[in-house]
């Protein structure tokens, strides 16, 4: 008896520990994951989802308000309302204030379009609900191992956001004016110096202006890949100083001598359309084609990527911690990565945004449909884009570059 006693006591303790552990695990799981997908669909029915997103892009607005909203209404009985904002960072800051004020339920934002530094801020301040991405049935169509899906600007996604589409920087030019555009960042910088006043980039922290600075940063540091791994402070400082020096010396050769900058990519697009500058920059490879068909660009406009590649990333949707309609938001997020929604989005006549899902995971009939999509006149073939992709640096590098640009290039300190 006695000899049996000790082990049994020990195993009893162990089992208590086990029960506690299981209880804790269940408890955590029940917060996030207690509902099955059919239950989520059931709860979502009749909900109104307010989706906060950058509203500056009529083709995106048209896709969301026209196509997505009517489809999720018909399929799932979810009413989708787009809430256009001029910068999603304002929404992040609003969530921060709500967190501060202790407003943990019934928040106004159900879904938001987000990535990069805003995701990092949200994650750091636990402003996000989830992980929820893995509950979505259509998540199986996404290649979760792809670097830009696994990590968002170096920040592990961990199911806290669900991919929606992917973007890659392209340079836009008018082939009637510049038949042979410079194909590397170095050549472009030379071209700018030789053609004063004919180039501009949006002022960071605008997304597109910021990514242009990152291209110069990669050029100045001589390499893009190594920044993905461990961060070397002194190496960063050297490369950053070189970047600011290049850009500061460049500013007299910019549009309006660099005294003012276009505030966003569409203002820059206006400058190109009006013939004030010879290049525009866009995160959306198909945007130029869409703008040609809308009559906003001349027919001779084309795009190119740098020989050394251009930065590409994935954009996501996320659900705030205090969202009032989380189930509805999940249903919408799931619909967004369905084959039909991704196909519609990839159509250059609609939006032309690149799929977030892995086409090879679809059955053959869907694959054919994607292959048959008309590519816009100015859009590069997918193979050329994919073979010229660079990763985004971790977002702390991005933030420091933006602050540094503000201090050294804009304010000249």
């Amino acid at each position, binding site marked *: 008896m006695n000899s049996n006693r000790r082990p049994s006591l020990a195993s009893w303790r162990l089992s208590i520990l086990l029960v506690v552990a299981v209880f804790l695990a269940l408890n955590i799981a029940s917060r996030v994951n207690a509902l099955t997908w059919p239950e989520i669909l059931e709860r979502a029915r009749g909900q109104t989802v307010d989706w906060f997103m950058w509203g500056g892009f009529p083709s995106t607005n048209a896709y969301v308000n026209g196509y997505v909203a009517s489809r999720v209404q018909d399929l799932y009985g979810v009413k989708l309302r787009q809430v256009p904002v001029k*910068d999603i*960072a*304002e929404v*992040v*800051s609003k969530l*921060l*204030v709500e967190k*501060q*004020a*202790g407003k943990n339920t019934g928040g106004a934002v159900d879904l938001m379009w987000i990535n990069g*530094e*805003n995701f990092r*801020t949200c994650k750091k301040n636990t402003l996000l609900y989830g992980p929820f991405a893995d509950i979505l049935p259509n998540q199986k169509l996404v290649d979760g191992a792809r670097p830009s899906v696994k990590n968002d600007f170096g920040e592990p996604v961990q199911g806290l956001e669900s991919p929606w589409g992917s973007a890659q920087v392209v340079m836009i030019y008018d082939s009637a004016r510049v038949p042979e555009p410079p194909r590397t960042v170095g050549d472009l910088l030379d071209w700018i110096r030789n053609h004063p*006043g004919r180039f501009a980039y949006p*002022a960071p922290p605008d997304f597109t202006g910021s990514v242009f600075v990152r291209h110069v940063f990669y050029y100045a540091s001589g390499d893009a890949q190594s920044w993905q791994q461990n961060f070397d402070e002194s190496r960063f400082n050297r490369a950053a100083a070189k970047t600011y020096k290049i850009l500061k010396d460049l500013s007299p050769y910019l549009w*309006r001598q660099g*005294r*003012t*900058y276009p*505030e966003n990519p569409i203002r820059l697009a*206006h*400058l190109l359309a*009006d*013939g*004030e500058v010879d290049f525009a920059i866009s995160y959306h490879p198909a945007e130029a084609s869409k703008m040609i068909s809308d009559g906003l660009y001349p027919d001779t406009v084309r795009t190119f990527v740098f020989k050394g590649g251009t930065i590409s990333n994935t954009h996501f949707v996320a659900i705030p911690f205090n969202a009032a309609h989380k189930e509805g938001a999940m249903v919408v997020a799931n619909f967004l990565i369905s084959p039909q929604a991704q196909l519609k989005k990839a159509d250059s006549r609609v939006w032309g945004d690149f799929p977030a899902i892995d086409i090879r995971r679809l059955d053959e009939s869907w694959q054919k449909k994607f292959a048959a999509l008309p590519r816009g006149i100015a859009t590069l073939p997918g193979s050329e884009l994919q073979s010229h992709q660079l990763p985004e640096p971790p977002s702390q590098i991005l933030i420091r570059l933006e602050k540094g640009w503000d201090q050294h290039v*804009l*304010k000249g300190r």
Partner: protein
Amino acid sequence: MTTNVTSTGNNARTRPNPGLPVIGRLVAPALLVVTVLFGGGLLLGFLQGLGYLPAAGMKVFTLQHFANVLADPDFFRSLGLTLYISVTSTAAAALISIFMALVLTSLAQRHRVVHFIFQIPLTVPHLVIAVAVVFMFAPTGLFSRAALKLGLINSSASFPLLTNDSWGIGIVCTYVWKEVPFITLMILSVLRRTGVELLEVGKTLKAGRRQRFFYITLPTIFPSLGAACLIVFAYTFGAFEVPFLLGQTYPMTLPVWAYKNYSDVDLLARPEGIAIGLIIAAVVTTAVVASQLLTKAARRRGLVL
């Protein structure tokens, strides 16, 4: 801030006072709304500007946020820019308004259409006129296209920068377009009531045009002109939309700076945004109080009516 309201307010002196309870009941709702919402908002803003945010666990009062703002090398640049824009807009609008008021009184009631068209800017939101100003004044706007057609310039690059420029020309034009009808109508209401008769008297006394303007018209319209100008100054000093859309990337005006800080994802920037907002309020209030005191002093010496 005595507008034309008090200049016609002789009625009050002839009425018997019905007693404070009655008057109290009449003004209480308005006072309540203004003290609770406006006064409360300012007070809560002030607490936050001092870093007091109990909900966020910040319970210590500090002047650090105000000090940070005032010590920032950009502060005086932004203040100067903001003052420059609002003073220039107000002065330009006032001069044009005086001229317009004289023209419109001479037009009398014959041109009802002109009077109607003249009031249109009152209804147009600043946002819309700012869009139109970009369409017209931008380096590739309507004016630039016209200038090219007329052979005045040879490319958009030689057209002067009128939007997002360092002199805030687009901003000032937007404000002038929007505020001239307001100031003019304020002046007109006085001019129509008293000015015309006085001018007739002046004519019979053989006063010259110049004399009539400086000794009759100007003193008559001065109180309402001053009041209108103060309102315009205060508005243009604290407005966000127009400088945000038409201003330079750097430096920015105080309101744009304030909102930029307020909406920053860095929560420490928020009290600084509020501090800038309070500084804006202080500058505007000081300007208004000072001008009132000056007018009072001048009035005592008989310089103005």
